[in-house]
């Protein structure tokens, strides 16, 4: 017989298991939610608003209805009472924004769904959606972005921090930096589009949808439709990239469920790439003012960061990550202010390191400016201000290996060969600059549950409604169960992404492994207890089972994360498990930390910016699978490069539209842009953060890269660029 093109891997004991679902993915066996084919499926297509603010005066649907194969057209005039209004997740709801779809004639952002066509084929639905003519009455003014005069700024009082006396200390300090920074709107653009399929069987609804939190979709949708959540099942075995955009229920899901209920047949929607720019949240543009003051030895005396974040008029969203940047270094006088700036845009949301990336860019660039003002090596500046105690409340870090990361990465990078003066390193026509910055990400975990079944033939099945986003969740689940029960990796099967399974937390905040691994460990421990080998070695488990006369042992366990009250466990079963940790604990702070080093090259004449080399070192507690962790870290670092010199969602100020809402014009790096990216994992043991000792690596890789690049650009050129992305015109 033919050799299989992708043979199943043969894992030797002690080896790092490869990706559990890798073979299924590369052979096409893995079926993503939009791949599921249901009989009699009708196809939906959205028509979205072409104005940013105003009202719908009328629809002309005649041409759309005339398209052969059209079954139904939903508008605010025809949809009926559902879905019910729900506040956004930030205000206690389940959903990424509160603007009810097809809810009224009001248009509050460009790209807002105003009609949904359902037809026999995708082509007919698309054709009809394009034939819809909407007469709009645009509002005379429009705030398209954070700089707009019509946008409304509001302080977020609960995010204020005042420690010591910033103003006095800053005024009296010998060395000061005071500068403004900006980051642009950016979109996650996961390769897999925003797809939803809904199928009713009687009063039971199955939703196939890529999701970072299936139970959130289930409970939120039940509330929107006014039905028992027990009647809804959400299935999401594979997610083709999410990066925060699939973190919470979006308004599209209810539309598809309602259409399927009206028609009595399954309905499938795959929003277009452009529609994906407004179907879910995105990284809002931000502004920052950072003021730093230090003594002549570089010790920080005063630190102030004020942030302004764009939000929608409907929902106030602020990431407010100065709560973290203010705690990174020893400093006696600290001030933090956070503001939202409401404009006529869709509600922003989470995108990989949502607050850490922009706030970290501002602070870590300001620190480099301080190092220049002090004529001090930027690594040494971080060393002088390193601390094991956060400076706001004086709480201890559970573990902090920042300077080990800097030292390891600096050695690998060759930092000692850097000549400090800006513009002093050159290679022919290329200006060379080296820069560095701190990476940080708070360690979160949430309540989660898991079930593990061990049978006497040596097979194990582990299940939990966690999520496989490509980060390695299946692999982690199987690996932890294999290790805990002393069976080979290839004897373990894993199930996830299904509300029928024991509930788990959102796959967000880099918390999946830190939350679910402890639940799997607890279930395995329960199995050992049943078999009378509690506390023994994993090698004792199988002999104990075989000696017991039982064929199968199955245990369920739920685990409560540190910092969550006892009553929080109920929220796990209502789709509301929230991560705890980071800077939100009463007794300690928890962070993964790292150091980013980059080399940039800028052409002396034409100013193209290249990043031929990046080295990151990260200390994130226990690394369960170095292979998948490495993929996460270099993926994050590459996105960091992209966030610094490529990505920007371009906004037309006349209607608040994104004019590059496609993968050709939304600039992302291609292979030729990414040359040598190295992620090192610094050994770190932390027995406090959670039972697994895991801090998470999903997001930290992206943090700090943009600052390191900005700092390297300064080193290459002597030009301090404080606005992302940095493009060649900024260096002309």
């Amino acid at each position, binding site marked *: 017989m033919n050799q299989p093109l992708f043979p199943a891997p043969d894992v030797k004991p002690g080896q790092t298991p490869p990706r559990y679902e890798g073979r299924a993915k590369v052979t096409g066996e893995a079926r993503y939610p939009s791949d599921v084919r249901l009989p009699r499926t009708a196809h939906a297509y959205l028509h979205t608003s*072409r104005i940013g603010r105003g009202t719908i005066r009328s629809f002309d649907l005649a041409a759309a209805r005339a398209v052969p194969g059209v079954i139904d057209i939903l508008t605010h005039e025809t949809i009926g009472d559902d879905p019910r209004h729900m506040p956004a997740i930030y205000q206690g709801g389940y959903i990424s924004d509160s603007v009810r779809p097809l809810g009224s004639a009001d248009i509050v952002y460009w790209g807002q769904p105003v009609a949904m066509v359902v037809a026999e084929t995708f*082509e007919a639905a*698309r*054709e009809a959606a*394009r034939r819809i003519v909407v007469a709009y009455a645009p509002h005379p003014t429009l705030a398209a972005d954070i700089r707009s005069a019509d946008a409304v700024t509001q302080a977020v009082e609960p995010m204020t921090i005042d420690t010591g006396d910033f103003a006095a200390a800053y005024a009296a300090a010998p060395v000061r930096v005071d500068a403004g920074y900006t980051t642009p709107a950016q979109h996650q653009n996961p390769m897999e589009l925003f797809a939803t399929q809904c199928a009713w069987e009687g009063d039971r609804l199955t939703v196939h949808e890529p999701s970072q939190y299936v139970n959130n979709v289930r409970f939120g949708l039940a509330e929107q439709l006014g039905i028992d959540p027990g009647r809804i099942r959400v299935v999401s075995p594979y997610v083709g990239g999410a990066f925060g955009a699939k973190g919470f229920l979006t308004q599209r899901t209810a539309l598809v469920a309602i259409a399927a209920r009206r028609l009595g047949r399954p309905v499938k929607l795959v929003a277009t790439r452009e529609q994906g720019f407004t179907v879910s949240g995105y990284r809002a543009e931000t502004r920052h003012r950072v003021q730093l003051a230090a003594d002549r030895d570089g010790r920080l005396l005063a630190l102030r960061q004020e942030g302004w974040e764009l939000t929608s008029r409907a929902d106030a969203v602020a990431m407010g990550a100065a709560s973290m940047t203010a705690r990174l270094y020893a400093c006696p006088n600290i001030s933090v202010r956070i503001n939202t700036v409401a404009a006529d845009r869709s509600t922003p949301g989470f995108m990989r390191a949502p607050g850490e990336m922009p706030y970290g860019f501002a602070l870590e660039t300001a620190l480099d400016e301080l190092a220049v003002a002090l004529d001090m090596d930027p690594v040494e500046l971080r060393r002088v201000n390193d601390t094991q105690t956060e400076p706001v409340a004086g709480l201890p870090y559970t573990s902090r290996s920042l300077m080990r990361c800097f030292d390891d990465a600096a050695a690998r990078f060759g930092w000692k060969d850097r000549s400090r003066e800006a513009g002093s390193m050159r290679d022919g*026509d290329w200006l060379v600059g080296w820069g560095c910055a701190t990476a940080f990400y708070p360690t979160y975990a949430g309540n989660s549950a898991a079930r593990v079944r061990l049978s006497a033939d040596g097979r194990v099945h582990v299940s939990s409604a966690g999520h496989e986003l490509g980060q390695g969740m299946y692999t982690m689940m199987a690996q932890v169960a294999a290790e805990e029960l002393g069976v080979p990796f290839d004897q373990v099967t894993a199930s996830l992404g299904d509300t029928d399974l024991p509930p788990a937390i959102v796959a967000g905040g880099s918390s999946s492994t830190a939350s679910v691994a402890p639940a799997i460990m607890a279930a395995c421990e329960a199995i050992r207890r049943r078999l009378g080998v509690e506390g023994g070695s994993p090698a004792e488990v199988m002999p104990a089972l075989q000696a017991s006369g039982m064929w199968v042992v199955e245990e369920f366990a739920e685990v409560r994360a540190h910092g969550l009250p006892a009553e929080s466990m109920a929220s796990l079963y209502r789709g509301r498990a929230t991560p705890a940790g980071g800077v939100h604990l009463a007794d300690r702070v928890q962070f993964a930390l790292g150091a980013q080093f980059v080399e940039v090259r800028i*052409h002396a*004449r*034409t*100013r*193209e910016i*290249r990043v031929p080399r990046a080295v990151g070192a990260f200390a994130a507690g226990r690394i369960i699978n170095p292979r998948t962790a490495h993929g996460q870290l270099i993926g994050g670092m590459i996105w960091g490069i992209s966030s610094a010199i*490529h990505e920007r969602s*371009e*906004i*037309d100020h*006349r209607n608040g539209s994104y*004019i*590059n809402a496609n993968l*050709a*014009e939304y*600039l*992302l*790096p*291609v*292979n*030729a*842009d990414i040359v040598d990216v190295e992620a090192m994992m610094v050994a770190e043991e932390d027995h406090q953060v959670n039972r697994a000792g895991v801090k998470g690596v999903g997001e930290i890789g992206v943090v700090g890269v943009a600052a390191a690049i900005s700092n390297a650009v300064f080193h290459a050129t002597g030009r301090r660029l404080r606005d992302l992305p940095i*493009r*060649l*015109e900024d260096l*002309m």
Partner: protein
Amino acid sequence: MRPFHYSRPSSLAEALIDMRDALAAEPNSSAAFLAGGTTQLDLMKLEVSRPDRLVDLNALRGEAGHIRWDGTSLRLGAFARMAEAADHPDVRARAPMIAQSLSLAASAQLRNMATLGGNVLQRTRCAYFRDTSWSACNKRVPGSGCAALDGVNRAHAVLGTSDHCIATYPGDFAQALLALDASVVIAGPGGGRTIPFARLHRAPGTTPHLETSLRPGEIIAEFIVPAGGWFRRSLYLKVRDRQSYEFAVASAAVALDLEGDTVREARVALGGVATVPWRAREAEALLRGRKLTEEAARAAAQAAFTEAAPHAHNAFKVELGQETLVRALLQLATMETPR
């Protein structure tokens, strides 16, 4: 989707008849030719192009897919694929600029599909042209206005613009053909004709929807690139926002014939900065007979942009375009050319 008629003629003669008949039956026909499809199908999906008939020319590769050196000229069949021309030994050895302009364009997949004739006819990437929900686009809907003038126009042109259109010509290969004084062999229902490549594209003026001098039903059959003393000392320099799979922010197709360090003849065309493939004759004139110093290169580059008309977001293209040309000229000055 919108239905359309489709035919796949087996010869150039048959294709011309198909299109002639379509135009005779319906004078306002939106019938279009289909070659590699990398622009045409893209624009059909966007509904920017809505042909009622597609005449597929892909069976014509045998007739007009050649690449050969005839002793005095490179002859490039219009139906040769970009990748075939970019990789052809005669093209690479004799006119490096042509090979570079092709291999630096698009992606390997697109270069394997797109034809040379289709490539020079590629439409602009102006976002306001490509999104039909913008009502103002003189190129798409004559007389409707230009949304780019007050819109996001970083990518737009600074040369050859008008009050009616500032859309950038996106291609690369055309600049090489223009710099090298190529001519275009055109087949038409009324017989063939040959025109200078420089007369193929039309600046927008008051009629941005008229992009070329091709008449209805005509097909580009071949490009003829005559050899010159500048043929080998040539390059295509492309500056862009990422290293591959990206259009030029500024580019320069430059060929030099040097005697010692003195310029005997210069050929300069610019891309990424103009509404059409842009020949910089003022720059060429300034270089002719001068020593190729940085000063001379800079003077030529400034001359090339004296007429530049920037808008809100693309003013940098004036300096960038100049620097691109200076860099290309100085790089060519030191280039080793095998004889």
